[in-house]
């Protein structure tokens, strides 16, 4: 196998993404403008936080369905504190503490009571949705205006959005933790075979609770960024759409939905892919309903390609 072929096989999501970019550029040259690139980088931040939190959960063989609606809920928590105090400090403390607590709650039920993550986090999803509507009745909203929200939503360093730099830093941190500390090995081991991981002396419950605490924290952070970008919060935000984009990003990036395998780099490129698709379909003025249909088709095509390449690798190694 030539090096070029191997490069293509192992990093195909990069090439798929670049190919899509080229197509969109040919259709609409505006796609490649600096402004648009910048817009994409800002749009993907909440999805990226969801994807990052979800990544560890999925590699460990679990899933966190609550992440999307939880970020809507935590954006509302921030809004409520802002409304009460006129500042953000207490709101941020509350969001971080609350989101980690929610993650620990999910993780404890999954780890200690051996409940399926799917059901546990589906229940938290319902609770987050219900509580959001309880705090702010449907149709109403809280506006968030102030230097903090402007900073999160629009501040740039060297022409790059601060929020995107924050996301990129988190991805780098996650890369180091996943590849160069024992936590990464433990998560992979648990996703491959929990029983064997336990027999190797790994504290499986602690790792699982930690993973869910992190995914909870990511939901909270996504909530903060979401609220700043929108400038208002309301319970009708499409949190589940956010969740699905995040899951799609990591799966397209080569993470095995059944757990045990995945790379941070792949997840990042999957995220870029989702960002590009979302942006360009908007740019091309594709109607909302068709937007989703196209997105579905493109994701399946990308996955099919991943699968074909994976299969061909299997044949090669034997």
């Amino acid at each position, binding site marked *: 196998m030539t090096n070029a072929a191997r490069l293509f096989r192992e990093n195909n999501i990069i090439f798929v993404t670049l190919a899509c970019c080229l197509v969109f550029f040919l259709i609409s040259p505006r796609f490649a403008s600096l402004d648009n690139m910048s817009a994409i980088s800002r749009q993907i931040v909440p999805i990226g936080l969801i994807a990052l939190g979800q990544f560890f959960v999925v590699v460990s063989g679990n899933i966190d369905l609550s992440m999307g609606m939880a970020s809507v809920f935590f954006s509302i928590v921030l809004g409520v504190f802002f409304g009460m105090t006129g500042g953000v400090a207490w709101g941020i403390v509350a969001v971080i503490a609350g989101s980690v607590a929610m993650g620990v709650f999910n993780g404890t039920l999954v780890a200690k009571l051996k409940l399926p993550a799917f059901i546990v986090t589906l229940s938290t999803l319902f609770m987050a949705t219900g509580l959001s509507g309880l705090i702010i009745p449907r149709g109403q909203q809280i506006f968030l205006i102030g230097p903090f929200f402007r900073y999160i939503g629009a501040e740039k360093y060297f022409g790059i959005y601060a929020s995107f730099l924050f996301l990129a830093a988190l991805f780098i941190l996650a890369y*180091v933790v996943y590849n*160069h*500390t*024992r936590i990464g*090995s433990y998560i*992979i*081991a648990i*996703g*491959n*075979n929990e*029983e*064997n*991981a336990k*027999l*190797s*002396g*790994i504290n499986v419950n602690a790792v699982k609770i930690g993973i869910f605490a992190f995914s909870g924290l990511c939901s909270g952070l996504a909530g903060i960024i979401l609220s700043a970008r929108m400038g208002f919060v309301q319970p009708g935000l499409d949190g589940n759409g956010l969740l699905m984009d995040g899951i799609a990003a990591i799966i397209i990036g080569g993470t095995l939905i059944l757990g*045990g*395998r995945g790379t941070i780099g792949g997840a990042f490129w999957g995220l870029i892919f989702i960002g590009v698709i979302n942006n360009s379909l908007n740019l091309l003025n594709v109607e909302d309903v068709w937007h989703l249909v196209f997105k579905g088709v493109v994701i399946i095509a990308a996955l099919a390609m991943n699968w074909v390449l994976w299969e061909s690798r299997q044949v090669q*190694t034997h």
Partner: protein
Amino acid sequence: MKNENLLEMKSISKSFFETKALNNVDFACHAGEVHALVGLNGAGKSTLTKVLGGVIQRDEGEILLNGSPVAISRPSDANDIGIATIHQEYSTINELTVAANIFLGRELTIGKTPFLDKRRMAAEVRELLKRFGLEIDPRETVGNLNSGEKQIVEILRALATKSWLIVMDEPTSALSEEDKQKLFEFIRRMQDEGISIIYISHHMPEIFGIADRVTVMRDGKIVLSEKTGETSEDAVIREMTGEDLDDFIKPEKTVSSDKVLEVKDLNKPGQFRDINFTVARGEIVVMTGLRGCGAPEIAKSIFGLEKDYAGEITYRGQKLAKGQGPAWSVRHGMGFVSENRDKNGILAPLSVADNISLPFLYKNTKLGVIDGGAVNGIVDKAIRDTGTKTHSSATEIRFLSGGNKQKVCFSRWLDENLELLILLEPTRGIDVHAKADIYRIIEDLAVRGVGILVLSYEVDEVLLLADRVLTLYQGDVVSEYGQSNMEKEMLLADMAGVQKSA
């Protein structure tokens, strides 16, 4: 530092409900000793090793290390005093590297930082590999290794944690001939380092080839424990069964000239080349060779699981569409027993009855509803005919022993319309007693006129079963023998790819 440990188990007893699984057992393992533990399924050898490994608790007796009692109440206690068990299902993590697996749970880090010292871990693994004369890349992902190498990784992990007593449960059951030799060499090297090994196996040649001492268990008791030099294969087998083994004798029968299967010019690049053979009604044709010889792929092509082959397969006079699929094959009288019983053979959470009746449910329905009476009749007859030992037909199959599970896999195909039965490694991991039962079932089917195609890697089994044998080497049929000119040495040479000076 040489290991000088002595482990003794004294007067160990363990009961499960009414049954005494271990009855006042005394067992000892010295430093650097390879101690073979044999016995039929249910003799108590796995209970004994589980007590030693801390998986189950003894009712009575004590375990002594160098003369002082030790408490082993959970698996980690056993690990702490240097006892490791290598199970048949490897506990390696496929997505991690060799080094990461060996250091899993006790990784080395750079100084006091949380960062992994991958270089040092790889170096230590390389050191360990060198010490035992093994060649594996520490940075390779374990999923890319073959089963022999995975087993070595598993053993190395035990050695890296300073284990000195390694319990191996049927270590060769999933290994090719080449990997077996590597394992034996590895065992000898470990022995030189003073590592002790408890070796559970059914294979007499292996036991007498590598073990210093052999202990035989029967009905929860130790009935023989001798140096291998001071006893014999016959004596061990006699003690295992408690009676002189009534050798399975191939019945007289006439093979019809009516071909049930004809394979012509079968080719699949990288798997097999120019395969031609036939199977007649009542004939047992055995394909043999080393692992990787291509025989399983041929069998799967016939059953319709593979479609990318060139050539022609004619079944009962009808040319098969490529990849016709198991559904078609079963409906037209073909049966298939997979080599991987637990994965592709049984449905673990279902009852014995459900496992037996599954392929023929479609025949026993009235207006789409299962005819319970008819099904029960078939199930009871199948259990009787195969001599399956089960508490009842409603017992979940996962509670049965390997041999009995395999009998259930056979029971599915006792249907009167069976014309061709394909068997992949029909006695893998099964004790001698159950083996004889399986051979009897196969012969009974052949006498009834069923054509039988067997894949076996065990030469003794080939000699015992085959009316005709095809030996394959790397995808080619290298020889074909009938019953009159079948010889063990010739077969072994052909299997191993030894060039014949014609």
